[in-house]
């Protein structure tokens, strides 16, 4: 439920670029709107405080008017009591001063026009009456003047006083209202600004969350998927809701995964077919070979028994050819099994000295064949080793028979020492011959399948050219290595190092071993 917004953003049919720009502009727009709102609120506050200031000045002016009115009316009334010309002049002057005060107020009394006009009218009447009184007084008609003063002036003055009071009161009430309004407006504006700020922040955060989630979600999914593909899992596909570049990326990722899966299955099938073919072929070839070798052996035995020895060399040639063919088939099968990863290690504990003795015995006929001498220099107590004995035996046998093949009337030396340098120790074996040796060029191709030093060598010395490739793969499977030093025409030294206790088999040792990158120290 929480994810509906990122999902909506993801589904929007726009590019990632557009979405990012859109989100950015949305946030900028929010900022601008927020700024405008704040400016308007500030303007409102300013306007209201200006209004209040005006009202305050108006109230002050009204108060002044009221105060003056009271004073003048009082002064005027007092002045009219005396018949002296000086007093009368004073009364008239005060009357005009009041007029002046009133006119000065005209600009602030737009709202109270009615009241102002009323005051104006009453004042005119007062002026009229007082002018009359002054005239009567000057004419010494005191009784008439007194009567007029009492009947007209006093009520008019009272009315004027009352009207100015009312004006002040009304203005003060106005100001009170305005101040209340202003306070209320301030509170409202504060909430509007806070509301806008909170809303904008919330919207910006939501937008940021939605956009980043809609982008990062698929990236994480695809990262996880790629990791699985790297580990060889092609079975799943990645589902992202995006209709942008990321969506296309995910589609391409899924397509790639499917292609890889198909390719992987094809390769697997091809490899299986190859293995099956080799296995079947080798079986089919072995059956007739079985008969060739067996019957030639039997005929040789018969010839021996019947004293017909002339046949024996030919029969032995048939048998030897059969054996060679068998060896070839076995080596091809071995190598194809190693390459298919079908070879497993079966470690067991055995005595190294016993094994070396056994191999030396097996290889003796080959040593004698080229009139060589085998010298064995090894510690008497090499002790127990935990490894696949069949493969260690084959490694030693391959190296020794290889040395025999390329040496005539020479010496083949096997040195074996136990090296305690790391972990459980290492068995280090050197097989040295005084044979034909190799050139740099020849050594480069040495451990690659089917690559005897050159074709002439293969013709002359026989063999499959697979022995060293198999030997090297066995060494690496067991966690060890093989190195070669050689001088053309002087001889060759192979050095094998194997751990005394087998580590768990390494799957990648096989694949890296087939790459043909041999490790040599010359």
């Amino acid at each position, binding site marked *: 439920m929480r994810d509906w917004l990122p999902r909506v953003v993801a589904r929007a049919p726009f590019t990632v670029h557009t979405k990012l720009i859109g989100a950015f502009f949305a946030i900028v727009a929010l900022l601008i709107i927020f700024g405008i709102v704040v400016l308007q609120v500030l303007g409102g506050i300013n306007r209201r405080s200006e209004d209040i200031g005006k009202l305050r000045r108006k109230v002050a002016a009204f108060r002044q008017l009221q105060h003056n009115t009271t004073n003048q009316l009082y002064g005027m009334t007092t002045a009219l009591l005396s018949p002296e010309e000086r007093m009368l002049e004073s009364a008239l002057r005060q009357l005009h001063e009041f007029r002046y005060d009133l006119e000065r107020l005209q600009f602030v009394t737009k709202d109270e026009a009615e009241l102002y006009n009323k005051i104006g009218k009453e004042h005119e009447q007062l002026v009229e009456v007082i002018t009359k009184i002054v005239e009567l007084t000057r004419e010494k008609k005191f009784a008439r003047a007194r009567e007029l003063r009492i009947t007209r002036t006093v009520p008019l003055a009272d009315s004027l006083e009352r009207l100015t009071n009312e004006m002040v009161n009304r203005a003060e009430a106005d100001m009170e209202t305005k101040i209340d309004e202003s306070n209320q407006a301030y509170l409202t504006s504060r909430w509007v600004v806070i509301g806008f700020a909170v809303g904008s922040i919330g919207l910006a955060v939501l937008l940021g969350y939605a956009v980043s989630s809609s982008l990062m979600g698929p990236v994480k999914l695809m990262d996880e998927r790629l990791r699985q593909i790297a580990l060889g899992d092609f079975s799943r596909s990645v589902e992202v809701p995006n209709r942008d570049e990321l969506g296309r990326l995910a589609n391409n990722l899924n397509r790639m995964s499917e292609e890889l899966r198909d390719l992987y299955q094809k390769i697997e099938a091809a490899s299986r077919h190859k293995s099956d073919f080799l*296995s079947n072929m080798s*079986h089919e070839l*072995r*059956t007739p*070979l*079985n*008969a060739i*070798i*067996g*019957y030639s*052996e*039997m005929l040789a*035995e018969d010839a021996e028994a019947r004293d017909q020895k002339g046949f024996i060399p030919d029969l032995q040639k048939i048998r030897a050819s059969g054996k060679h063919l*068998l060896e070839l088939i*076995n080596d091809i*099968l071995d190598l194809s*099994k190693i390459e298919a990863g*079908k*070879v*497993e290690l*079966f470690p067991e504990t055995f005595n190294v000295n016993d094994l070396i003795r056994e191999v030396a015995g097996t290889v003796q006929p080959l040593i004698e064949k080229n009139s060589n001498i085998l010298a064995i220099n090894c510690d008497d107590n090499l002790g127990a080793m935990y490894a696949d004995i069949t493969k260690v035996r084959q490694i030693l046998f391959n190296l020794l028979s290889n040395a025999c093949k390329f040496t005539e009337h020479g010496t083949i030396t096997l040195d074996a020492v136990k090296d305690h340098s790391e972990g459980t120790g290492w068995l280090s074996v050197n097989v040295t011959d005084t044979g034909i040796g190799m050139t740099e060029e020849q050594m480069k191709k040495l451990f690659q399948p089917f690559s005897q030093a050159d074709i002439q060598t293969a013709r002359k010395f026989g063999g499959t050219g697979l022995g060293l490739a198999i030997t090297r793969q066995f060494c690496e499977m067991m966690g060890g290595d093989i190195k070669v030093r050689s001088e053309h025409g002087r001889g060759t030294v192979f050095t094998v190092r194997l751990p005394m206790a087998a580590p768990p088999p390494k799957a990648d040792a096989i694949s890296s071993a087939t790459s043909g990158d041999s490790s040599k120290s010359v």
Partner: protein
Amino acid sequence: MARILLVEDNEMNLDMLSRRLKRKGYDVVIAVDGEAGVTMAASERPDLILMDMSLPVLDGWEATRQLKDMPETAAIPVIALTSHAMEGDREKAMGAGCDDYDTKPVDFERLLVKIEALLKKQEKP
């Protein structure tokens, strides 16, 4: 002389091995499939059985398992012969109850050593 039961379906292998074994003085009886092998083992009571693994009717592994399950034949040593020499074949054969293992084409001298070793072990107890 010791009696050896040879269970093998390939005619030439059968002919060769039986003739060479006879020449070495063994009393050889033969069977050409797994089922016949089991029957012969029960009736002829050989001292040792040479068992090919890829046999018709009943394969070598199953035949060996049946032989080792029957009290009257369980003690007879069985040498498995396989033409595959695949990695794990030895373990598979030993797992079925075989006492030893060799690959075809047989190295006759080596096979004789294995036969003699098992026969000797058989006499001792």
